[in-house]
């Protein structure tokens, strides 16, 4: 077996192990949440018997470790359980499957993240490479200062400025991102323009600065000097000789930012009333809807682990020492 494949399988195994450990952490953390769903629903006046019956129905009377294994066992079979919400003290059960609740929201989030990534990653790479190529020039300074100021502002502030500029003063894009499952693609893109732009401004700086730094870091190496002494143009030196050796740090930062797009954008969702998974999780925490909280947390963890794994694998594959052992 090629050592690369073995390394990748190893990493994959480690990723799964991490995910398993994280699931324990998530479960315990939810255990420690103050308050209780039954009390939240039934109110203080409920009799002990009603509470006990309700808890029994939800399985909350089982010991923690049994509930954990029930939960993780079902998750492994793709069943994230049933949401608590929709139940009421009167015994009417309008609760829905967690998957049914999360799936459309997750799709929305992934759509927004994907759209942002398609704009932000190439933009950041382009800015980073050109800033490195013309380093210390006016262009470099403007790019640096510009990206630094957008990252320095809180994201909701960036969002409101964009709304003010592009929705109020110049009404180009809608300020509310109303999308539903059946919204056509073009409209979806149009509606998501401002949130996507906001997120782009938030994440571009980090990736651009890492690209620039990673390339400039290599410019002092003897093989770059050699490339120059071979009479190659500045562009070829950077793109052909420096960039391929700079992927590892750049890819890691990209992965980090993509993960953020999935798991950390609740503020932007709130500002634009975008129906993403972040809002869903916050709502679920408020209403003590434990199955939904756990499912969201697990999805977030899996996103992080998966993207980092991908970054690791790309770093390995772009390193010829590992790809072509002696």
């Amino acid at each position: 077996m090629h050592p690369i494949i073995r390394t990748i399988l190893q990493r994959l195994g480690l990723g799964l192990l991490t995910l398993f450990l994280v699931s324990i952490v998530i479960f315990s953390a939810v255990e420690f949440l103050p308050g209780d769903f039954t009390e939240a629903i039934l109110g203080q006046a409920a009799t002990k018997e009603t509470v006990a019956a309700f808890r029994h129905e939800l399985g909350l009377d089982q010991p923690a470790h049994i509930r954990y294994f029930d939960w993780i066992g079902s998750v492994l079979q793709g069943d994230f359980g049933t949401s608590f919400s929709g139940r009421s003290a009167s015994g009417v059960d309008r609760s829905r499957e967690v998957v049914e609740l999360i799936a459309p929201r997750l799709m929305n989030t992934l759509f927004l993240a994907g759209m942002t990534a398609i704009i932000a990653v190439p933009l950041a790479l382009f800015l980073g490479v050109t800033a490195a190529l013309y380093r210390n020039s006016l262009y470099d300074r403007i790019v640096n200062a510009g990206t630094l100021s957008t990252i320095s502002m809180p994201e909701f502030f960036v969002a409101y400025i964009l709304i003010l500029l592009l929705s109020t003063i110049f009404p180009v894009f809608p300020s509310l991102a109303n999308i539903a499952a059946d919204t056509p693609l073009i409209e979806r893109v149009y509606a998501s323009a401002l949130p996507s732009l906001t997120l782009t401004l938030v994440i571009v700086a980090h990736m651009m600065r890492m690209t620039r730094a990673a390339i400039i870091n290599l410019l002092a190496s003897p093989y770059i000097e050699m490339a120059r002494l071979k009479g190659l143009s500045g562009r070829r030196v950077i793109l052909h000789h420096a960039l391929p050796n700079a992927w590892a740090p750049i890819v890691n930062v990209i992965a980090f930012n993509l993960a953020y797009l999935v798991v950390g954008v609740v503020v932007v969702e709130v500002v634009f009333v975008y129906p993403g998974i972040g809002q869903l999780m916050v709502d679920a925490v408020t209403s003590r809807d434990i199955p939904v909280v756990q499912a969201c947390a697990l999805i977030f963890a899996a996103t992080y682990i998966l993207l980092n794994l991908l970054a690791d694998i790309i770093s390995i594959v772009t390193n010829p020492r590992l790809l072509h052992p002696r």
Partner: protein
Amino acid sequence: MSSEADTLLEMRDVRIDGFADEQWHAIIKGVDLTLRKGEVLGLIGESGAGKSTLGLAAMGFARPGCRLTGGEILFDGIDLMRASERQKQRLRGARIAYVAQSAAAAFNPAYRLLDQTVESGIRHGLLRPEEARAEAVELYRAMDLPDPEHFGDRFPHQVSGGQLQRAMTAMAMASRPDLIIFDEPTTALDVTTQVNVLATMRNAIERFDTAAIYITHDLAVVAQMADRIKVLRHGEEIEEADTETMLSAPQQPYTKSLWAVRSIRKQAEGNADKVLELNGITATYGTRPVLKDVSFDVPRGRTVAVVGESGSGKSTAARVMTGLLPQIAGTVRFDGRDLPPELSKRSKEDLRRIQMIYQMADTAMNPRHTVREIIGRPVRFYFGKTGREADARVSELLHLIELDDSFLDRLPGELSGGQKQRICIARALAADPDLIICDEVTSALDQIVQDGILKLLMRLQKELGVSIIFITHDIATVRAIADEIVVMYQGGIVEKGPKQDILSPPHADYTALLLSSVPEMEVGWLDRTLAEQGQAAS
């Protein structure tokens, strides 16, 4: 004088500044240089003399932090001081090529060797890709590289240092340049490898009638390669003459002093009780064996030189003795007592009595610690001295290494290479050790500075009676200071014994090869040696 038409490169009153300590300093202070077509000029001097800077200026190139400030550089009539960047790019890699000191660092790790070899030829539009590839294979063959048809399919990390250096010469040759700048191309190689690389490089430049500037600090090497030699010091020319004249009758005192280094000749002493005995040491890195059944003794108060090329296991032996790499078999017997293999099981006293000095003094010292802290730490750690008592001891140690109290509050960055290594010696002495292991301690230094360090070590040994293990690949150093010699090759011992026995015939095969590969300062040594080694091999 030659006719004007013959002149390939003409540099007149070239001045180059470098930026350091927040201001510009002159690195090259008005140097003239003339090179005829097909001629090889040796550029020699200590590090910091400005050799590389001048060599690169011949390509119209200044490293970041340097700038060309004055003079004229005419390459085949083209004024490189006034040429546009585009014009210079067209010359570089096409008519002027560069061979760097460390081929391992100068090849891009991301690409196969062939792609890098043909790059300049194709990019400059000199050759079509398929022509360039065929040409490269021919050059690999001319450079004696193994399996030339497929050699270029490998990545830089997949071939040895000597092969890489030859591949880089092939890369420089690929576009049939008129001029090649060789910047210390064999300094990073073992002597046994160096001989072959030198020979292939010289054959190649002769065959294609290429002019070359050969930069080195090694006189013996330049004597084999150059038609003329120019000596540089502190950015100024000391003198220039044809090779034979320069070797036989140098005019300037500085040049004579360069020629006269390695005047030290320690009379070997025998007969002393053993301070350290290695018995059947076997050690591995992971599963890879690096030492196989290594045994030798170190007599008290004597110097044992461990010689061999890189990868022979010399430094690994030092790691075993100090406990950094526990052996899997064999014993380290110190002063009549077996030492535990693991560092953590050795007592403080055991640690104190064996000290180590490293090759790179730069990286062996914390750059944010002052000399007082660096030397003071072992004084406090082993002897519990603090305050005035510790200061007194540090000051005493400084005097021992021929420096004074003005160095106490300096940082390593403010010291010269030789001074840094002296501080490292003082730090080792601070523990008042029985045995000091010196791992290539002079390899990174200029010859004159090396001499100073070696004299110091010998004086200290005489005064303090300390035993020294001196790990090196440099036979001249061994000749100078050893009492006994251990020759290592591929993790085993080839030969060991008193200096005069090892250095005089009959030799073991490998020792003979090693000794004959050390360049000597006379014209024609390379040809003679190749002939002799060829005979011995057949």
